[in-house]
């Protein structure tokens, strides 16, 4: 049967096979990667807003000397919740969500490799986040900083349940990050369109793969660490207790072995977004594809060898400090390679200054600035001067907001039409970019100076005699602009969802496969699955397209290809909607939460999770072969 002859019928059948049930059943059982990724993005932005409000209150408090907006205790909770939320509940999940949405589309398949697991990852993330914020609302907000150093976070100095909630939430939500990482890796290696060898993998997919490998090797460290912490707090182990042979620095080593890669986990996907946007808007293939891939991989490897630069102030042997100084400075090499490749692409192309590209330009400027202060801080003697001052706050906001949030906003303007079918408004987009850029610099640039003037981080107030008032007022004024820019963005989203210009399949004339299907994509992603002949399939269409035929539209069949060359290997059937993911997440969540209060929680969690797992794995009757024809 020719595919073209009965195309609408084929689309109808595929729609029935891959669709999500309507109503509450669909909400609770959906396994569509696009629906789940969308939930991740929306939830992450809710947390972003909460953390933003926390930041705003802190800026209000610090806007003048001897501020009295909040108490010292509440201020401690504010900066802890702000950091924890931004790192664990916003940045990592939102980046992974982009991967979960885009990777299957970009490699030309119909869903991620483990759809039920993917759904469970979302529920775990949601429950973990709610758990932390319920604690905060009840006055048990974590207050020992986002890295919860012992002994401050230990049983002696942090009695009560605050740090327990924090530690359990970390262990729990990192599960979700790990699940997403495995999804992205396997989807990218096993479900690519025929012909999409690794050398033709879109750079965004490369960045997601590199990020996912970093998640796999970094997150276990913090899970082990937060578990040690809660064991010290709840059952009297002595991991961090020097009096009984423990070691307080053990916490820092394990935390930063995760914590430094964490920073790269957050901005590596941003680099992939930049590469996508630069290529599309420069109207040419990105310059230095291989160099860009190798730079991403090098960043990942180096990222695991420099965690100790967070610990220069603890008293290290000089040889050790020098090693970590050199390793930290080396990061500038792959970063520099990438920046030059993007500049070369823009220089050699015909750049179209749409909003996504504006955010990329902002990214280039800010990321380079953040990188420069990074090289400064990598030097142990200078770090000793600046450690724990606002200089560090300025540095990492330049890296994280400049390096990750600017590309993310660019990415949202770029892929919003794909996900919703409508373009965001350009005029509001320009306002958003401009306000955000100016507001950001106004907020964070003065912090470099404040740090050099000696203002420490995490003080809830300061005296007028310090002379820090004016720069702080400036920073707080900048925060107002940032808030205004986010409001402009939200207005843009709401307005465009209802009345935005229709996007069509490929509004930007981009080259990668996600633009080869409708916007928004149907539940089955592509009616005609593609095979590809090069790295820019949609820019090569005059050479003729290649489609994949022979998958049944009546079951959730996907093509599995070989990991390196993407040669067709076999066909497998992915699972459909299921109630087990949310039940398993609930069971595990109950176990985690309850175990803070009683060891019976572990038993309850094990029984509930075991029951849900059994239901999950119990073999269902497979459809008879004749139903699949």
């Amino acid at each position: 049967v020719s595919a073209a002859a009965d195309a609408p019928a084929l689309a109808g059948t595929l729609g029935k096979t891959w669709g999500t049930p309507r109503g509450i059943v669909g909400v609770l059982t959906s396994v569509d990667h696009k629906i789940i990724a969308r939930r991740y993005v929306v939830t992450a932005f809710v947390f972003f807003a909460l953390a933003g409000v926390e930041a705003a209150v802190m800026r209000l408090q610090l806007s003048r000397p001897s501020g009295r907006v909040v108490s010292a205790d509440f201020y401690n909770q504010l900066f802890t919740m702000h950091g924890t939320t931004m790192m664990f509940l916003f940045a990592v999940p939102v980046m992974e969500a982009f991967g979960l949405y885009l990777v299957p589309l970009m490699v030309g398949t119909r869903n991620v490799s483990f759809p039920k697991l993917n759904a469970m990852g979302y529920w775990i993330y949601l429950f973990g986040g709610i758990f932390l914020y319920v604690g905060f609302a009840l006055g048990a907000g974590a207050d020992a900083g986002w890295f919860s150093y012992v002994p401050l976070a230990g049983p002696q100095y942090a009695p009560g349940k605050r740090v327990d909630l924090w530690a359990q939430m970390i262990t729990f939500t990192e599960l979700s990050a790990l699940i997403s990482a495995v999804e992205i890796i396997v989807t990218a290696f096993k479900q690519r369109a025929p012909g999409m060898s690794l050398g033709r993998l879109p750079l965004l997919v490369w960045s997601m793969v590199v990020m996912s490998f970093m998640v796999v090797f970094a997150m276990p460290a913090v899970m082990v660490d937060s578990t040690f912490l809660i064991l010290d707090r709840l059952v009297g182990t002595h991991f961090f207790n020097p009096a009984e042979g423990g070691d307080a620095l053990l916490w820092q080593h394990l935390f930063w072995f995760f914590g430094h890669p964490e920073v790269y986990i957050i901005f590596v996907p941003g680099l992939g977004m930049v590469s996508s946007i630069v290529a599309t808007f420069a109207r040419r293939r990105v310059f230095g594809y291989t160099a860009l891939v190798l730079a991403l991989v090098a960043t990942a490897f180096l990222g695991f060898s420099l965690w100790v630069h967070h610990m220069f102030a603890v008293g290290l042997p000089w040889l050790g400090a020098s090693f970590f100084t050199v390793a930290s400075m080396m990061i500038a090499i792959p970063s520099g390679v990438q920046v030059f490749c993007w500049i070369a692409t823009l220089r050699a192309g015909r750049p179209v200054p749409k909003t996504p590209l504006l955010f990329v330009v902002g990214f280039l400027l800010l990321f380079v600035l953040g990188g420069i202060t990074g090289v400064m801080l990598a030097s142990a003697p200078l770090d000793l001067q600046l450690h724990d001052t606002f200089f560090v706050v300025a540095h990492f906001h330049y890296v994280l907001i400049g390096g990750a949030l600017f590309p993310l906003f660019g990415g949202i303007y770029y892929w919003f039409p794909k996900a919703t079918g409508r373009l965001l408004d350009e005029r509001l987009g320009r306002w958003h970019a401009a306000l955000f850029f100016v507001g950001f610099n106004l907020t964070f640039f003065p912090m470099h100076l404040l740090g050099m003037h000696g203002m420490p981080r995490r003080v809830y107030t300061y005296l007028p005699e310090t002379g820090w008032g004016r720069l702080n007022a400036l920073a707080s004024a900048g925060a107002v602009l940032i808030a205004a820019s986010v409001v402009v963005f939200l207005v843009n989203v709401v307005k465009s969802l209802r009345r935005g210009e229709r996007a069509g399949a490929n509004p930007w004339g981009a080259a990668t496969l996600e633009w080869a299907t409708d916007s928004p994509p149907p539940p089955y992603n592509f009616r005609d699955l593609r095979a590809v002949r090069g790295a820019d399939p949609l820019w090569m269409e005059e050479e003729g397209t290649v489609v994949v035929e022979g998958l049944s539209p009546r079951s959730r069949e996907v093509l599995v290809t070989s990991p390196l060359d993407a040669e067709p290997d076999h066909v497998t059937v992915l699972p459909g909607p299921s109630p087990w993911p949310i039940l398993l997440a609930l069971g595990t969540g109950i176990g985690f939460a309850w175990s803070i209060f009683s060891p019976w929680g572990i038993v309850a969690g094990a029984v509930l999770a075991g029951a849900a797992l059994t239901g999950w794995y119990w073999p269902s009757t497979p459809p008879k072969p004749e139903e699949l024809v």
Partner: protein
Amino acid sequence: VSAAAPPAVVDVSSLPRGTVDSRELIWWAFAGIIAIEGTMFAITAATYLYLAVKSTDWPPLGTPLPGLLIPTLDFAALLLSIVPSVGMDRAAQRDDVKAMRLWTAWSLPVDALCVTLRFLLIRNLPFRWNSHAYGSIVWSIVGLHTFHLVASTLESILLAIIVFRERPTQKTRRDLRVDGFYWLFVTLSWVPFYVLLFLSPRWK
């Protein structure tokens, strides 16, 4: 599709529907889980070594060493359990129902022996998790690994029920491959821990 020529076609209708071996997606999921948990194990081992290096006395003075007999028997039982596990996997690959059931029947008592010896090992540890940091890390490593051992044994029991209930389907045979792979990880990962926890304190 804007191509002038009609699209060329890659026809996949003759490809196998599902496999029972390591090309299957679920095998890759377990490779991911093993990478994650292997990292976790490595980090606990690194913690043990870090605490050992930082201490003047390791184990702390006056702390009796854990006995050698039961841990060694436990270690041997774990290694032995690899045999039926590999047997199950090979039988599943050949689609030999009789052999699958035979090896499954063999694996259950061996797995039970492993779990029993492991609980004896825990009972005989001559210190508690809250005695000192040494106790904390030894109990954590043993506890973490025992959790994997028990979970993996429960999975084997579940699979055994399925293998005996019906003729193993392609999915069940694939699950046997994955289960065998994971069992190999659980057993072999104990090798460094056995050396670290029970042999290394005796090298003095």
